């Protein structure tokens, strides 16, 4: 069963390409996670938190007025945007924070791009009384200023990263450097299904609840499985979370939508699987954007959360074995879908998520009115109002 693959390798992808200094911590984490995974009291504690704190199970919402623009297919949204803190990220964060507590770590560090993972980590740190430091590229602290304020309000220290391209990839480098130096008391709460083993495996496990709930909900609502499951892919955590429960349903197509930025025929995109090739970045072998010499290329996306030149190794593997496919969506296509969902359904999605929404419209036109398309609505758009306001010219000039 494809669902049973647990790393460290996914085909030729994955592994642990990190300094030796981190291996003991990765071994400790892998062991602790496996113990937690089989420990009913751990699972009960996490389920209870999800019910009373996260707000799970999250809803399924059918969006016919939106779907009218996508071939009148049945488009169903898995509402991870309604989770506490506003995105799917909380699923992984609560799970890892509980593991970190069990192994006696008192300090959480995290990287963040859009700020959603940073906010979720700062939230868990506040909830569990842990110290928290979030690394965020300086470019992202500027375009996601509201989330910076949220993290600080929650008691976290936010460190703007000024090296390299000053975005998510550099925030991960800085978090890894911190971890190398402070691994005794610190857990690196990695926010996506990338990085060295056991992160891709553990983070996927904490997010697979999305697909497990959605599979039941779609069956109940429509009496059958969806034809396609769609999600946006940066590192790939929300996508793997909703894909996982369907991996062994051969009639369900899985489609990930990558950020094509200003277009995949320009240098400014983040379409890692579409345009990249395998290499080693941030501790794992996977597809990545790089030049001939193996230097990482800076990515571009209007959405900070997809602005990453790598992708989780399980996605690379699903792509290579043909189980999932990955398509590019441009900044402009995503922004149009964001406005369309807002105006037809009264739901403002995150810009990241809007890439999958554009994808769902494309799929609907291809598959027609009888088809059922499940989309992971991974996050809400409140954090993106600066970007959307500028893009759509929504601010009164005298005020802004």
């Amino acid at each position, binding site marked *: 069963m494809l669902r049973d693959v647990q790393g460290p390798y996914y085909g030729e992808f994955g*592994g642990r390409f990190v300094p030796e200094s981190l291996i003991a911590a990765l071994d400790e984490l892998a062991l602790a996670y496996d113990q937690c995974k089989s420990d009913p009291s751990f699972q009960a504690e996490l389920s209870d938190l999800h019910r009373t704190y996260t707000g799970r199970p999250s809803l399924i919402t059918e969006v016919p007025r939106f779907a009218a623009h996508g071939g009148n297919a049945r488009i169903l949204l898995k509402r991870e945007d309604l989770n506490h803190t506003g995105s799917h990220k909380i699923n992984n964060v609560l799970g890892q924070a509980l593991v970190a507590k069990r192994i006696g770590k008192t300090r959480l560090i995290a990287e963040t791009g859009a700020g959603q993972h940073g906010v979720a980590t700062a939230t868990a740190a506040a909830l569990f009384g842990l110290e928290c430091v979030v690394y965020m590229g300086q470019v992202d602290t500027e375009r996601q200023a509201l989330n910076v304020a949220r993290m600080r309000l929650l008691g976290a220290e936010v460190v703007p990263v000024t090296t390299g391209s000053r975005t998510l990839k550099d925030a991960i480098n800085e978090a890894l450097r911190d971890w190398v130096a402070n691994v005794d008391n610190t857990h690196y709460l990695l926010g996506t299904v990338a990085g060295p083993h056991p992160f891709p495996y553990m983070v996927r496990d904490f997010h697979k609840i999305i697909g497990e709930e959605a599979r039941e909900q779609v069956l109940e609502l429509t009496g059958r499985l969806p034809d396609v499951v769609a999600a946006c892919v940066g590192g790939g955590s929300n996508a793997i979370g909703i894909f996982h429960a369907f991996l062994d349903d051969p009639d369900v197509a899985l489609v990930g939508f990558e950020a094509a930025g200003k277009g995949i025929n320009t240098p400014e995109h983040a379409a890692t699987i579409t345009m990249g090739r395998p290499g080693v970045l941030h501790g794992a072998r996977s597809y990545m954007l790089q030049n001939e010499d193996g230097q990482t290329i800076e990515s571009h996306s209007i959405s900070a959360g997809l602005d990453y030149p790598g992708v989780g190794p399980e996605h690379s593997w699903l792509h290579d074995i043909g189980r999932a496919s990955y398509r590019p969506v441009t900044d402009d296509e995503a922004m149009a879908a964001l406005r369309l969902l807002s105006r037809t359904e009264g739901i403002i999605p995150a810009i990241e998520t809007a890439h999958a929404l554009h994808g769902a419209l494309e799929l609907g036109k291809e598959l027609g009115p009888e088809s059922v398309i499940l989309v992971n609505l991974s996050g809400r758009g409140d954090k993106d109002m600066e970007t959307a306001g500028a893009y759509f010219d929504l601010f009164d000039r005298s005020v802004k």
Partner: protein
Amino acid sequence: MTSRVEATLDACRDEGRAALIGYLPVGFPSLDESIEAAIALVENGADIVELGLPYSDPVMDGLVIQEATQTALANGFRLKDAFSAVRAITERVSAPILVMTYWNPVVQYGVERFAADLAAAGGAGLITPDLIPDEAAEWIAASDKHDLDRVFLAAPSSTPQRLATAVERSRGFVYAVSTMGITGERADVDAAAHGLVERLREAGAQHVGVGIGISTSDQVREVQSYAEGAIVGSVLVKALSDGGVPAVAALASRLSGQRANVEPGLA
């Protein structure tokens, strides 16, 4: 086949001393100056050169080395320049050159092709900060085939089994990471360093180099009292950045205890 790095360390031992291993990145501040700086390093007492390959995501490096290697990349450094630099240095001095590189550039160049070209250029081997022996089957095969040294890292946090693996798979020396952290100057050598070297001895290590946070003559002497080599990096890079090749020459001579050997034109 003998390791040139081990032969150098053994020769130092026969002289009743330990080696000075100096790190400098290739391509900083320019390709030509990085070659001259490496030569000055050897002419002023460094026994082995660790030539760093600039990489976009250097997670083991502190700010000094990050800034230098990013400058090299911004100036247009290409992988092929590393081979020409190794060739240019080995034509003028006989100290072994170990290339320090993160793993992806080697993967993209092709592990076998990289090994062949490094050997052809006269390089002695690789130090691989983000390649652990567990993931290194291809590199171990290629380095055996081309008679290259391979230096794996050992950390204070490594288990006895992992230390044994690092010792067994390394050739040249084992790189003992003195402290849990990244490259950069520190006030004192971490006490963990001495303990780690002793644990490496118990695991059978004949040749150990100690690096990370070693920047003063006193720290070099301290480490040389219990290891075969002391590895100095950031402070040399800083000297090159601040005072050019003459500053590297002067610092290397202080660290090695050898009288300064500066070409008149450079002094």
